[in-house]
């Protein structure tokens, strides 16, 4: 049954918060098909990244998955992280995850299998390869680990304001980590997020502007610890506009600015 968003918002608003929060954290039995497809996507992605490494020395990519159907917003992928080559020749993804049912997020370093063993909306990987001259500094920063951590903010909202520092969603961390890894001045200050965002503005990054109606805001906010809107400027929030960091906006900006090559995708055939 297809419901209109406003109906959904009312349903969400009327439902007990814990139930809604619990739904997103629900433990579901893992089917053999889901496990095999997640691992297959991971293996094929690994093979593609290995091939890129063999071809041109690629050691770092910005890697995305499609955990959500965001097509209503014109978006294709939902979540990204930094994938980089490990000393043993395998790959790890450094990314931010929200601790279930809380307004906190932490950074994790995971294998490709874990990255794709999610309840994916679509079994498709997407990535951009940072420019050749950026590969070495990015790989060094990811391997050392300190600089990308400097822009990590545990306070989490999944629709956090792109130019705010009160909350930080995962794609926002990944984007700010790019600034922290490439611009030495960013990590020279106490609050590294502000200079990171200044660098991103200077480089021309533009977040995605989403239209979120008041009832939708209310419905999403009630009882969900990990969604907040009050970090957004009033003039935007009260005119139903939410500026936040999305995979698609990051990919488009990186490619257009020459920071990376074009978006590459790898999808498993759909199943019924």
């Amino acid at each position, binding site marked *: 049954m297809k419901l209109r968003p406003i109906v959904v918002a009312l349903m969400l608003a009327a439902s007990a918060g814990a139930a809604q929060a619990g739904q997103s954290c629900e433990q579901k039995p893992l089917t053999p098909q889901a496990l095999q497809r997640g691992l297959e996507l991971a293996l094929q992605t690994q093979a593609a990244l290995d091939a890129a490494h063999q071809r041109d020395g690629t050691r770092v990519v910005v890697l995305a998955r499609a955990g959500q159907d965001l097509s209503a917003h014109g978006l294709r992928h939902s979540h990204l992280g930094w994938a980089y080559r490990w000393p043993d020749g395998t790959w790890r993804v450094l990314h931010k995850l929200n601790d*279930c049912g809380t307004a906190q997020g932490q950074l994790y370093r995971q294998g490709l299998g874990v990255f794709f063993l999610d309840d994916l909306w679509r079994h498709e990987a997407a990535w951009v390869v940072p420019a050749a001259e950026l590969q070495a500094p990015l790989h060094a920063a990811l391997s050392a680990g300190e600089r990308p951590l400097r822009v990590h903010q545990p306070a989490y909202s999944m629709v956090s304001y792109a130019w705010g520092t009160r909350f930080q969603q995962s794609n926002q961390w990944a984007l700010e980590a790019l600034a922290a890894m490439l611009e030495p001045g960013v990590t020279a200050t106490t609050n590294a997020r502000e200079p990171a965002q200044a660098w991103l503005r200077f480089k021309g990054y533009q977040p995605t502007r989403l239209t979120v109606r008041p009832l939708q805001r209310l419905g999403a906010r009630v009882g969900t610890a990990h969604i907040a809107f009050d970090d957004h400027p009033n003039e935007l929030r009260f005119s139903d506009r939410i500026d936040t960091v999305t995979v698609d906006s990051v990919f488009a900006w990186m490619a257009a600015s020459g920071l990376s090559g074009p978006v590459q995708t790898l999808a498993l055939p759909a199943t019924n």
Partner: protein
Amino acid sequence: MFRTRFLHHTLLAAGLSLSLLTTPAAHARSEASVAVSALPVASLVGASAAVSAVTTVPLALSAGGAVLVVKTVELSAQGTVWVLERLSDGARASVRLSSRAAGATSVGVGTLVTVSLTGAGVLLSAAGQVLAFIPNAMGEALLANEQVTR
């Protein structure tokens, strides 16, 4: 011997979960890593860590589609050990799951288990559910999971 692990983090990928805002609640897709948290990673009993995982897979688990029966279930502080026997020829293998992983499933003597082979390891399932996943060396890397900040 391979280390028995159970990936127990229940996480939401902190990505943009706008499904709450736009899609029917019944169809809402979260970024929760529930699949990973529900993955019972197991190990082979008697396998040597000095030998590659691929070569240590016992005969009983070497063919996809094979059906095995659970002969014994042994509980211990280190977890649960199942002794499995292939129906076609009686070949046996022992698999250990951590206590927590084993607790997620109800496997008793006589349960029929199906073997599936993947590039990342051996999958044991029954009644449409994953009972255990035994990663090979590649699978170990794919399932690496480390919390960096706290």
